Every structure is written in C-alpha cells, then in structure tokens.
C-alpha cells in the first residue's frame, strides 16, 4: 500500500516542526500590531544584545523572517532538503545540525557585522544544511571527487553559489550569516558526524570543538568590542573603571571604524567636518 503523506512526515518530524515554527512565527510577527513588533524584536539576532545577556537570539533569529518572499523561499528549501537530510542523519543529529548552523551564522554576523545591525531568517541554518548535504555526498561516494559526477551535489553547489552571489549583489542580505552557517554545517558533518572509515581523528575533533567554543565565547563576551565596553562603562559603579572602559570603548570604535555608531548609540553629537558634513555614518 502506498505510504501516506502523514506516514512520510512521521519519519522526518523535525523538518516539519521547523516548517510549522516558520509559519507560526510568521503568523505572529507579520501582523502590524505592537505585540507582533515586540515579539519580532525579542527574537532578532543583534550582536550587541546577545553580548548583553540575551543569548537565545543566536537561535531564535533562525525562525523569524522579514516578509512573505523570505519566508516562502526558506520554507521551500527546508521542505526540499530537510526530509532527505533528516533521514540520512537521524532526527537528533538533524536538530544538532540546524542549531549549530544557525549559531554558526549568528557568530559570523557578530564577528563581521556592526554590533547594532539586526539580522533574521533561517538562511544561515539552511546554508548549513546544504553544506551538510554536500559533505554527505563527498563521504558516501567511492572517492571524494566522484560526488561531483552526480547531479545532486552539483545542483546543491550551484544553489549555494547563486545564493552567495545574490547576497553580494542585493542589499539587505547578510552574506556573513550564510557563510558562517555554511562553514558550521559542513564542518559538523565532515568532522563530527563521520563514522567508520571516514571518522576523523580525535585531535581534529578537539581542534574544531575548541575553535567553535572559542568563537562562541567571543560572541557572548567580546571584551574588545566597543558596544560591550560601552555597556560595561555605563553599568559600572566604580568611576575609575567606568572611565577606563569608556576610553577603551572609544578607542575600539575608532580602531574598528565605527566611531559614528558609538556616538549614535550613546546619543552624543557626531563630530563635524570642516565642510559642514557629519562624519561617522
């Protein structure tokens, strides 16, 4: 007897939970109400807020979308690639892959974007899944390069390439999240989800784990980033320490080229150039 859609869905529950989460959060946040805006704001990936004690944003942003087109595209990719990947990896590993890819994308945003720049969308996690699918093909072929004789991996690579190009050309798309998610998902499968003949050495796994954790620590506690230093200065009870932190924040902002952002964030007037134009932004 032919398997029903429900029976097929039962074998890949996580994929459909994620799709339902996408649609639910879209329903909640697309409305033009104050509550919807609050919910959306509470889930956005903003590096400044993540380092200010709101780490859930590393994952929550992966379930929010900016509009119907954004939601539609990501949902289609999830439905296309999710079930096959979940069946190949198993539901638990699939959850780990989604979370790690989403966090990887968020870490890349924290490293490369302005700390005040909000980012949302499941694209980072989806890029991680596409990278994971390519990695699985590399591992399951008779030899690594044989994977590219097959249409599936070639299509995936083409899709990844086109989307990265799209991200470069179209403003408002965070390519850093895409790249971070892609690297995280691919490395996870190649290094940690490889067994038998493909299993990585313990030293390799340890090195990758240390690198990932280190970057996560840097995202949560960016002790040399101007926004974190400025926040600490504002909340410090010790005037001497507050002054030192403030100076460090200003120095860091100058070094990063984000002095204008710092001044905007602190509500201070921006320095004026000789020609009357404002600097920094």
């Amino acid at each position, binding site marked *: 007897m032919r398997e029903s859609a429900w029976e097929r869905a039962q074998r890949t529950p996580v994929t459909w939970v994620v799709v339902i989460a996408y649609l639910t959060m879209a329903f909640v946040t697309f409305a033009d109400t104050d509550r919807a805006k609050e919910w959306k704001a509470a889930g956005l990936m903003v590096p400044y807020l993540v380092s200010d004690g709101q780490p859930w944003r590393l994952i929550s942003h992966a379930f929010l979308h900016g509009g119907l087109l954004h939601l539609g595209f990501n949902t289609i990719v999830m439905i296309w690639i999710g079930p096959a990947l979940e069946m190949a990896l198993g539901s638990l590993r699939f959850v780990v892959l989604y979370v790690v890819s989403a966090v990887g994308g968020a870490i890349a945003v924290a490293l490369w974007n302005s700390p005040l720049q909000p980012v949302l969308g499941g694209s980072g996690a989806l890029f991680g899944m596409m990278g994971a699918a390519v990695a699985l093909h590399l591992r399951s072929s*008779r*030899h*690594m*390069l*044989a994977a590219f004789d097959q249409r599936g991996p070639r299509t995936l690579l083409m899709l990844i390439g086109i989307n990265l190009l799209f991200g470069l050309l179209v403003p408002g798309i965070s390519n850093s999240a895409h790249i971070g998610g892609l690297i995280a998902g691919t490395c996870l499968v190649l290094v940690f989800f490889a067994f038998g*003949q493909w299993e990585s050495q313990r*030293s*390799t796994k340890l*090195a*990758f*784990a*240390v*690198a*990932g*954790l*280190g*970057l996560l*620590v*840097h995202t949560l*506690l960016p*002790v*040399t980033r101007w926004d974190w*230093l400025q926040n*600490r200065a504002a909340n410090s009870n010790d005037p001497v320490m507050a002054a*030192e*932190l403030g*100076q*460090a924040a200003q*120095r*860091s902002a100058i*070094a990063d080229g984000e002095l204008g952002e710092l001044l905007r964030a602190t509500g201070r007037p921006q320095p004026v150039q000789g020609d009357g134009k404002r600097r920094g932004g």
Partner: protein
Amino acid sequence: MRANVRRLGLGLLWVIGLWPLLLLLLFYSLGPMATLQLQIALESWGGQLGLILLVIGGIGLLVYPPFPAGVRLLVSRTLSRMNTDREPLLRAQSDLRNFESAARHLEAGRAAVISGSPEIAFPHRVRSLELEPNQPAAMHKLGEALLELGQAKAAIGPLSRTVELAPDQGFGSAMLLLGRAYMRADQLQNAAEVLARHAREHGGSRKSLCWRGQCLRRSGDEAGAREVFTEAATPPVEGSKLTAEEGWYRACARVALWGRGGES
C-alpha cells in the same frame, strides 16, 4: 609534507579557539585598555606579517623553484587522495575476515597505502611476513612502510634482504628505498654504493639522482654531487611534461646546484 600542513591547520584552529579565552583572562587581570591595545597591536602586526608573507610567497613562487614545485606536488597528492577509491581497501579487509593469507594481507597493505593510510598498511605487512617469511614483495612493502613511518634503521633489514633475494623487486624500487634508508640512518657509504648500483642497473630517475647527489654531497664528494645534480636538473624534453614528483626533485636539484642545500 601532508602531516605538516595538517599540524599547521590544527594549530590555527587552536589559536582561533584559545584567543578569546586569553583576551578574557587579560581583561580581568590587566584591565580593558591593556587588553584592547594588545588586540589592536596584534591585528596590526598580523596584517603586516600577512602582507610580508604574501610578498615573500609571491617572490618565492617566481625565484625559488621548490616553492611552486612543492605546491604542485601537494595539490597533486591531495587530488590523488581525494580521487582514490577506498573500495579495494574495504574489500581487502573484508576478505581477510573470511580467510587469512599472506597475499591478502599484502593486498590490504597495498590498498591502504594507495588510499593514503600507511599506518593501516603496516600491521598487514607485518602479518604477511609472519605467514610467509622470505617473501620479497612483503619485505619490500614492510621496509617501505617503516621508512614512511620514519623508522629508517628498522627499514634497512627488510629492504636489504629484499635486494638480496630479488634485486629487481619493484623495478628497482626496493633498491632505491634501501639507499634512502641508509641515507636517513646516516650510513652514507652504504647509501652511495646502493644508489650507484641502482643507477647502473635501473637508470637514473630524477628522484634517485637527487638522493644520490645529496648522499655524495654529505659524504664530501662535491664534484660527484654536482655532476649528478646537473643531470637531475636538466629541463624536460621538448613536448613532454614532468610529473609533479619529478618536478619537485628537479627543483631540489636546481637549488642544490646553487649550493643551498636542496634537501628533499
């Protein structure tokens, strides 16, 4: 070379992972300004160092022959490893579960080396010899495995026995490896004799000429060394192209003629 590249990669990952923790530690011990100044200074130095390395790399690619030849060899070996079918190794190991024989162990060892896993090959070769001692092919491969694992002195025994029983084993490969083993074990006179015999009986590949030249130079025979290096450094015949490995040894010979080592 591959092991060094891997070590470099893993080292970089450790630096990426430990750097934020180090900054955190410095923040709470030295204070924010000192930590920030260190970060900015290292970023600046890192940028300048990167630029310098880029320039050196560019110059090296143009004027230091082993550099482009080494890159070509590394790429060739990596692509070869990625192109190598692991199915013969798995099949050979699976066959061994049903019935153990010297030939099957030898086959498993051969498949392991081709797959880029010499450490898997070694126990198979040892077992092959246990089952069938005095087998030139097995002793040759055992010696090769020992040499690849850096055990030059241990490799001399099986390789010299191989040459004794079958001088033409591996089309002269066993004899060449014996010469190399003697070199690595600093037995230069023996190395020179074996490599000279290899040149007489099997002709001179660029690899064997390069090794022979290094051996002669280390023994103090500079004139002999230069003659051999000159032969190894000859450009390829018009219309033909050297393999990545031949290119590497030709580059080493060219540098050796400059009198700047060129050890390979």
